[in-house]
């Protein structure tokens, strides 16, 4: 049986995915991906030309020889390919496929079956949000490290061990979001981003809002009121 606090965190987990990583209409997907791409140069502090078509773009960080592309048909069907570059050659490191036509645990349904505990908004505390965001983005519970010294050589400010690619993420937008975070080599930007997201979700969740967070707000283009 879930404890009260475990249940709160589980609800936070699902709400964050629903509010920030579940654009469904084509326009919303386009906007989400546009903001995603545009946020990367500032977050990674690199020179980067925004893609003309956000629906089918390649994100490239030539300074760490990594790039990735994606094809998102829907929340249930998508693929994200991650590459490493060696001179003019490009090798695929892995391909993250999401295909929900196969069975997966229906987390939402299970949670709603549980008896909802009556709580007021003060009961959600930032530590819980931080803990959930850690599991979703910053330090995914199940993750892989890239063991290749040619990619992040000895001089890099962040070691291979600090780059944690989330493993069993079945939401393509969340997967892209955590790639954005994990491929950021700037320690201070990682900390700022973490604090920003904790603050953002804290405000939204405490308001018990069910309106999706705008992509601009999610990627830090606008100030939350």
């Amino acid at each position, binding site marked *: 049986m879930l404890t009260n606090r475990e249940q709160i965190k589980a609800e936070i987990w699902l709400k964050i995915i629903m509010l920030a990583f579940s654009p469904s209409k084509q326009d919303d997907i386009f906007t989400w991906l546009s903001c995603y791409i545009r946020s990367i140069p500032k977050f990674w502090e690199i020179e980067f030309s925004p893609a003309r078509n956000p629906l089918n773009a390649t994100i490239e960080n030539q300074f760490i020889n990594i790039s990735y592309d994606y094809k998102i048909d829907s929340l249930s069907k998508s693929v994200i390919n991650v590459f490493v570059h060696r001179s003019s050659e490009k090798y695929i490191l892995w391909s993250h496929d999401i295909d929900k036509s196969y069975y997966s645990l229906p987390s939402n349904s299970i949670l709603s079956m549980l008896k909802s505990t009556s709580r007021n908004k003060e009961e959600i505390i930032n530590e819980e949000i931080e803990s959930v965001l850690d599991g979703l983005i910053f330090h995914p519970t199940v993750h892989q490290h890239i063991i290749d010294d040619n990619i992040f050589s000895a*001089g890099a400010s962040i070691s291979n061990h600090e780059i944690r690619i989330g493993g069993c993420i079945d939401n393509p937008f969340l997967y892209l979001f955590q790639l954005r975070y994990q491929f950021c080599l700037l320690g201070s930007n990682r900390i700022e981003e973490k604090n920003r997201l904790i603050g953002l979700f804290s405000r939204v969740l405490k308001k018990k809002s069910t309106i999706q967070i705008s992509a601009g707000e999610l990627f830090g283009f606008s100030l939350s009121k």
Partner: protein
Amino acid sequence: MIRNKDGINFDEGIPLVDLTEFETLYVQCHEKQQIEFISWLTDSTSPLLVGGQIGTGKSTFINKTFSDSSIYPDLTFHFDQDSIDIFENNPLIIIVKEIIIKALNENIDLSFTNPLYELTDGQVSDWQNLIEIFQLNDFSLNVYNIKKNIAQKLQLNEDFVLGIMREVISRIEGKMGHKIFCFASGFDKYSKANVEFYFLNSVSLFLSKYKTLFEVNAVHIFDNTWALKSCQKIFLSSLNNDIVKEILKKRMGVYSFSIDEIINNLCALSGGNLRQALRLLTNYTMMKYNYETLESCLIATAKKTSQDFFAFASRPSEELMKYIFKEKIISATTISLPGDKETAQRSIYQNWIFIYEHFEGDKWKVDLNPLVQHLFLNSNEITNYETVLLNSYAQSNQISSYGLTFGNQLQSKTPLVEELKKSLSDSYVFNTAEILHMISAALLSTDRTDRIIIAYRDKEITEVVRDYIFAKANSFEYQSFFHTEIVMSDISVQNQLLEAIKKNDVNIYSFSFSSGLNDNDIEVVDKMRDVFLSYQMIWWLQIDDLKYYLPKWTQLRQLFEIFILEDELLASINKNEIEEDLKAYSELKLKSKNISITMGSLAKVLLWLKGKE
């Protein structure tokens, strides 16, 4: 400027300005120069030139020193605008605008003078109104014409306007309780060959009466022909590879590890020039995925960077480049040779060569820009460039020894040098004649297809020089020449010019305007710009006339280069050389009672030079 804190900061050509930028990206260099600069900032009341080649970090050096010393200018003039607004491109207007704004901010009472209404035919009522017009952001043709008219009117009365500005500054100083400190930024963007540079001269002279910091190019530092030649100078040389390396690493931030393999090569190719280093880095990162090996990428990077900087640049002379490559030294005198368009000034201004450090006397350590080295290393070597330039330039261009006649304008002359050699038993070669020879070679090179205005103060001296140049020009078998005086007569100036061009099929047209032009002629001539495009021309104008014409020649002035005759003469010869020539001339007079017309002319030049030195 928003910079990345720890990531990539390529932003080539944008100087560092504030504390955050210095903390993130600044690397200590030019330490001695900074000490000298701070000492000037704290103690001096005279002007100072801070100069270096394009991309050496002049603006950043200046900003950093301001920041370190906490001493900032009271007035800053930006002369590097390339604006659609006619006011922002006019040096005099820039000066007036900043001084008046400062005066108004300091609540200085300007009612002691209000010549604007009269000067501008009622278009401007007072100083406040002038500032309002300055600040108009209306780009309509009407506003453009109003501004153009005001600019011309002020320019035509430049001396008077500057006189008023002097008084205004004096009142500002009184109010502030200290001598004013001015910063003339952006002089470095003006090539000496650019006519606009001419407009800076009177403004430079005006500012040189105050504690003014001039930001200039290296060619201005070494130039001994312009208004600021005697000022204190600080030269910022190209840097060593270690400093460039540190700068590139800072620009790469946390990603610097990714260029470990290539950074030494990039530094070597940069030649110590920061802007070039940054461009190399940018091109490398852009192209790194296009090539199989690091070597092939490096070659492509060098090629692309050299295309970026030199694809449309005019190449300096092969001889100079080969000489530099061999000797690695250049003398300051070489840099300011008269009419030096093809040689040293171009090579420095356009970064074909880089100046490193002072060697001894007037010699400086230099080297070819590594990106263009390969273009110059295949032909025969030249052993002594100065000798070649000074003594053999004309001969190497197949100039025969003897002059010819042309038209009925001039008498046949034996070239001066030859005559002098014959007259003196020890074959003394007059320094003055050599300089005239060089000016001739520079102005009449067959490589030139452009138009020159020779501005002069002394008509007599000009005639001697012109005679000499013409005699020299006619020694080119293939270079025909036509000279005529454009006079005020029943035939319009326009028709005189067109007729001269139509009737004489020659290589070079020379027109003298010693009797001046009226306002209508000035306007008509300006509209003939396109007619002159395909002709090589030399126009001879009194300097005072030129001052009056140029503000009105908005079209024509883009077509011409200006050559101030007396300045070039004075800059090329020193007092000892003149004394030597005078002594030789006296000996010659003692030996031969019949001094030729040519020799008599030379004597005039010598005496004039002596009087000016």
